Every structure is written in C-alpha cells, then in structure tokens.
C-alpha cells in the first residue's frame, strides 16, 4: 500500500513540474495563437542565466550572503528573460503577424536553436548547479496510518508548493489586474482588442515575459533538482503531451494534464514497464494523450473547436 501511494506521490511531483513548463506553452498560445516550441529552450536559457549569475555575483561584487545572491541572480535572470521576450516580439513575431500557425511554429523552433546556441555561448555548456537552499532530506508521512509510511522528498514538496503558488498568482494576474484583462481580450480576438486600443505588441512582450518568468521558475526548480545542463531543454518535449491533454487554451488544463501525465507515467513504468521490457516512459505520455484526444479532440479543458465554412 505504502509503495503504491509513494509511486503516485512521485508522479504527482513530476507532474507538477511538467505543468509548470506546460503553463508557459498555454500562456503564449492563449494570447497570441503561437505554439511556442521554444519554451524548453527558454527554461534552459533562464536556468543557465540564473546559475551563472549566482556564481558571478560574489566574484563581481563580493556579496556572499546566499539569500541576497540568489535574489540578485533571480532578478538579473528575469531581466535577461525580459530582453529575450522583447527581442522575440521585435524581430520575430512582430514580423510574422498574420502568418499561418505552422510558419509561427517553425519560427519558434528557429528561436529554440538560437536560444540554445546563445545560452551555451554566453553562459557556457558544462553542468552547473543552482542552490536556492531547498532542503534535501526525505520525510515520512502517514506513519500512523499504515506501516512504514510514505517516503517523500522535502524538496519535491517545496517545488509543488511553489508551483501551486505560481498558478494562483497567475490566475490572480489574469483575473484581477487590468493587464490581465487586456491579455484575455487579446486572446479572445486580436482585431477586436486592437480596435478598442489595446497595444498588441506591448501585450505580446508582456506575455512572453510572463512565459519567461514561468520558464525561470521551472528552470530553477528543475535545475536545483537535476543540475543545469543541455538536457533541460528536452524536458519541454515531455510538456507537449501535457499541453494537448489539458487543452491548448486552458490554464487549469495544463495543471491537471501535468498531474495526469505524471502519475500515469510513473504508475505505468512501475506496473506495466516490466511486462513490456521497460523504458515505456518515453512514449507512454504521448499515447495517453492521443487516446484522450480521440475522445475529446480539443483536450480535456480546451475550448470546443467549431468548424465553420
């Protein structure tokens, strides 16, 4: 019993992290109709920036207080992501207004290469570590309920808490602030939003900056777990089935999709894997998403796709 719950728990934790990356996809898709393949590269870029800044700041300024260094590093990395967002709007998306979806998708794959190359040129390509002081020791839960209890990593718990906080923060931002309202208007209808005076280009910079912020948080959490290295960029591939499972246009969809995929992946690997020769983690998420889509083509929470002639 304890083992089953542990597996599910582990799945939920990884799922939470997938959701964080998926969130970036959804934000940008909602506000600009761009399927942003570069989200993974943005995670890598942000994490690299953060890792290197926290390494460089003590050398430059002599500040050695870990909290201050981390905060400064985070702020600097966020500034870098802002610059990236601005540059993408200015030189890529701004030039591709009114193009078809696939052209935009390809452009973001171009951005992926650019960011991967640039990130590794500017910040180096070794394995770096981010240490934001998350506790690493495991704890036991439910020891009273059944024997042995459930082994949980404290780090995972914190990560899940941060992810949940992010989601609430984003929901508030979207629902309560005027910028959030403008973002939703743009998502609804570009032309109508523009005609009532919402500046599209500024909105896009904001959306990409928010996606950059999400990427940075995801990068910091993944990075402190696994170290910052090139493979971080590939985690984004895992977020793709999450996005389509939850629905491209739905923020709650990204969260629930992430949890479903995370749990499904872990449980299938443990119980189905040995029967099929192991390693089924790499495709299970996709097949699961595909099966879901056969029932609901727009994903679990996506807006219903209506075909008009």
């Amino acid at each position: 019993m304890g083992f089953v719950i542990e597996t599910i728990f582990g799945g939920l934790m990884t799922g939470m992290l997938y959701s964080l990356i998926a969130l970036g996809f959804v934000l940008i898709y909602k506000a600009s109709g761009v399927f942003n393949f570069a989200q993974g590269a943005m995670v890598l870029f942000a994490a690299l920036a953060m890792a290197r800044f926290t390494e460089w700041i003590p050398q430059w300024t002599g500040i050695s207080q870990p909290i201050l260094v981390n905060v400064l590093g985070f702020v600097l990395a966020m500034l870098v992501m802002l610059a990236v967002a601005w540059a993408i709007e200015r030189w890529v998306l701004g030039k591709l207004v009114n193009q078809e979806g696939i052209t935009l998708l390809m452009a973001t794959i171009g951005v992926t290469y650019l960011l991967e190359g640039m990130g590794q040129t500017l910040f180096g390509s070794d394995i770096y570590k981010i240490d934001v002081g998350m506790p690493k020791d495991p704890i036991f839960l439910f020891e009273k309920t059944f024997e042995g209890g459930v082994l949980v990593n404290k780090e995972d718990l914190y990560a899940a808490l941060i992810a949940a906080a992010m989601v609430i923060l984003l929901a508030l931002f979207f629902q309560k602030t005027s910028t959030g309202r403008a973002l939703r208007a743009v998502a609804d209808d570009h032309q109508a939003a523009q005609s009532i005076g919402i500046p599209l280009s500024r909105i896009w910079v904001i959306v990409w900056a928010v996606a950059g912020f999400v990427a940075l948080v995801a990068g910091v959490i993944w990075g402190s777990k696994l170290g910052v290295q090139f493979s971080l960029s590939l985690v984004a591939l895992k977020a793709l089935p999450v996005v389509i499972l939850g629905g491209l246009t739905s923020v709650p969809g990204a969260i629930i999709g992430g949890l479903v995929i995370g749990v499904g992946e872990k449980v299938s690997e443990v119980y189905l894997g040995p029967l099929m020769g192991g390693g089924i983690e790499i495709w299970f998420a996709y097949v699961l998403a595909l099966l879901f889509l056969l029932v609901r083509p727009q994903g679990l929470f996506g807006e219903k796709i209506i075909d008009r002639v």
Partner: protein
Amino acid sequence: MLYRENGQFKTSYRADSQIFTIRQDKIAIAGLLLLAFVLTHWLASDYFFSAILIPFLILSLAALGLNVLVGYCGQISLGTGAFMAVGAYAAYNFQVRVEHMPLIGSILLGGLCATAVGVLFGIPSLRIKGLYLAVATLAAQFFCDWAFLRIKWFTNNSSSGNVSVSELSVWGHAIDTPAQKYLFCLSFVVLFALLTKNLVRGAIGREWMAMRDMDVAAAVIGIRPVYAKLTAFAVSSFIVGVAGALWGFVHLGSWEPAAFSIDRSFQLLFMIIIGGLGSVMGSFFGAAFIIFLPIVLNQLPAAMGLQIGTETASHLELMVFGALIIFFLIKEPHGLARLWSTAKEKLRLWPFPH
C-alpha cells in the same frame, strides 16, 4: 528574351496537360537529368558523392513524401523519423529473414510496411486537427524509437542493438562504389518525383488540396475526408519509408534507432517549410539548403581565418542556423520554391519589364 512561351501553341489537350509545357523548361530539365545521371561521373569525387549528394538525394525523397502530407494535405506530422525507421527496419528484416530477397523488393516492401504504420497513426487525424495532431504524431515517433530499441525481434536479436547490411546488389550487379550508390538513389528519386508530381496534378491531389484548404467545405462538396486523409498518409509514408530504407541501406550501411530520432523529423519539416509547402520542387530546394548550410557554416570560420574551438563553433552553428530559419520565414514564408517562380516570372518579361 531567352525564357518565354511566345509562339509555342498548345493545340491538343495532351500538349496542354504536360508537366513542362514550355520548350525552355524541357531543355532545362533534360540538361539537369543529363548532368545528374551522366556528367557527375566526371565532376564529382567519391567524397562528394557519399558525403553530400547521396544524403541530399535521400533526404529530398523523404522531404517529398512529407510534403505530400503536410504541403498538399495539410496534416502536420512530427513523426517522419519514425516512418523512415519503420521503412528501414522492415526492409532490413525482409533482407535478412527471406532468402534470395532482391534489394529493390525489400526496399519497396519496407515502404509498404511504413504505409501500414502511417495509416494506423493517420487514423486519429480524422478526429484530431492542427497542432493537436502535430503533437499526437509525436506518439508515433517516440513509440517507434522505443520499439526498435527494446524489441529484439526487429533487430534480428543483435546484441548491440545496431543492424547492418552488406553486399548490396541489383540483378547481379554489385552496388559498392559511391558512384553506383548515387545512381541507385537517383533512379529512385527521379521515379518517385515523377510519380508524386502526377499524383498531385490528378484527382487525388486536388482532393488533398481541398482537404488542406478547408476540410469541412471539402466534405460538403463530396470529398470523403477518410479517403483523402488516409491516402495522403499512405502515399506520404510509403515514400518516406522507401527513403528510410535507402538511408539505412545505402547511406549508413549500419545504423541504430538514433539515426531516425526526432531531430530527423524536425530537419525534414524544416526542409519542406524552407523549400516551400505544396511544391515538389520545393522539397529539393529545402533539402539542398539544409544539407549545404551546415557544411558552409563549418567551413566559414576556417576560411575567414578565425580560430575558434569546436564547441563554440557548434554553438555558433546552432545560432546561425536558427537565425537563418527565422530570416527565411520572415522574408519568404512560402519558401524557396516561391522565390524560384517569382524569378521565372521576372525572366519572362526581361529585359523589358513593364
């Protein structure tokens, strides 16, 4: 002056429905075929054949197949690498397990197996559309990656997981020098390009294009979506499967699943987007661009006398590659094929444009 159709009258339906209606085009294509089939023997070295021309031809073929699906029928696929892999591994199994299997036979049968898998993964396209479908095709990619790595039967129980073919021969003639391999691939490419061109000009090609432009409207005027979409998947994955078999047999010789990874799928998608969606010619332009660009980028720093480390060089290559893709998408979203046809239009008026 040189390129115009003045005085060339089409007096029959036959003449009107030729692929190349203008005499200058016929001369140009005949010259190109002459160059490709005959003159390259004197012009190209072994290195040029095996490192540049053969990969270019095979990837053009794969791009052509993908273009049928994405460019003509409008179904975005990110699983091309998987269909190539199915073609290659199926052809390998026919070659190894069936005695006296002719090479061409196993390559075509490999293509047929890819067709079956392609249709199977094409079935969701009847319900799932657009970007959702694109991500769903990734299921094919990752599933095939896994299957060829883990299921030992496909690799004939080879212990290292990589498979190899040796001693290729067609009708008793051995194919072992790069020039012979090149001719072998070229024959396939020319044949398939001709077949594809005719398919997309015909009734079925029009159905695909109607599907691409607006599937609901196409269904309303009586085009069966099931038939149109699944034939596009079938034709596309057959060509891609044959290209995969050629890639494994002729270009690589021995390979493992990583040869057909998701990077390959992206590379092929780039080729058709840069070359031009919905254009046979564009597949070749795109393949040429994507094959030659890294080679040029590799040589450039050395040629300019810059000394940079290999690691920095590979990062710079990534950056330049990404930047060029964005640049092309912005400057010409319809691909190199559109540039080509604009150039031809200009040429018709030259030197007296109005």
